[in-house]
Structures are given as C-alpha cells and as structure tokens.
C-alpha cells in the first residue's frame, strides 16, 4: 500500500511537466486570439458602438428587416445568444457559485 502511494507520488512531477508541455502551445493560441477578440472596448470605441446601435435601430425602422437573409439572421441570433450568455456568466460570478444561490 505504501509502495503504491510512493510510486504515485513520484509520478506527479512528470505529470505536471506533461500538463505544462501540453497546454503551452494551446495557451499561446488562446492568447493569440483573445488579445484581439476578447479584449474589452477601449473608451474610444464606445461612441462608435453607440453609433452602430443607432444605425441598427434606424435600419430596423426603415424596413430592412425583410431584406435580411436567413444566413444573416441566424448569425445575428448566434451573436445575440453569446452576448446573453455573458450575462449569465456575470450572474454566476456575482452569486458566488455555478448552480443555484448558496444562501
């Protein structure tokens, strides 16, 4: 029993090295994309965002809704769903747990 535990413990540094070696390139890819795509908006971009939003509303009012292709509509739906999911992630952070409120 003690020997089995010793053998397991001696394998841990090897496992840690293997994990690091595995995750390094994948982490690099993640950072490569996240530094451009997941970065929060700089203060200069916020007025542009407001402009885009007003353009969207105006386009909606001008009746462009009937001219969107199904492909565009599905893509917009997916983007909207992703934005909604960020809200739920924020809620999980705020309540300090993943499932349910820990009262």
């Amino acid at each position, binding site marked *: 029993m003690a020997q089995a535990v010793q053998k397991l413990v001696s394998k841990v540094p090897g496992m840690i090295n293997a994990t690091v070696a595995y995750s390094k390139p994948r982490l690099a*890819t993640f950072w*490569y*994309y996240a*530094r*451009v*795509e997941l*970065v*929060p*908006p700089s203060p200069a*971009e*916020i007025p*542009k*965002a407001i402009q*885009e*939003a007003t353009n*969207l509303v105006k386009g909606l009012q001008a009746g462009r809704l009937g001219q969107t292709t199904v492909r565009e509509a599905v893509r917009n739906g997916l*983007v909207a769903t*992703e*934005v*909604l999911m*960020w*809200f*739920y*992630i*924020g*809620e*999980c*952070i*705020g*309540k*300090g747990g993943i499932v349910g*409120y820990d*009262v």
Partner: protein
Amino acid sequence: MLPPVAVSPLIKTARYSALIAGIIYGKKRYDYLKPIAAEERRIEEEEKKIQEEQARIAKILAEANEDTILK
C-alpha cells in the same frame, strides 16, 4: 491559423456591459435571498423543536397506555 477577427465595437461593449450587469444582478439577488433563507431556516428549527416535543410526549403517553399482562 486564421488571423484573429476584428470584433465590432457594438458587440464588445454589449458583451462587457452584459457581464457587469450580470455580476451586479447576481450580487443583488444573493443579498436579497440570504435573509429570507435565514428566516426560513429559523422557522423550520422552531417547528422541528415543537414536533420533537410533541413526539416525546406522545411516546410517553403511548408507553403509559399500553396495558398488557405480558410485562
């Protein structure tokens, strides 16, 4: 590897404001639910004590009332 996509500013602001709104909402709801849960737990404790008391009394009565000549 494809180059990273330039995300539109509207989507970026929407994502991060949704995140912050979610954090605030989660915190507020947690603070609202916590005293309610504490109150419910307190009430349940008291009722459990009363139930235990009654069970104890019922047991004593039942023991006193059983008459059999086999004792």
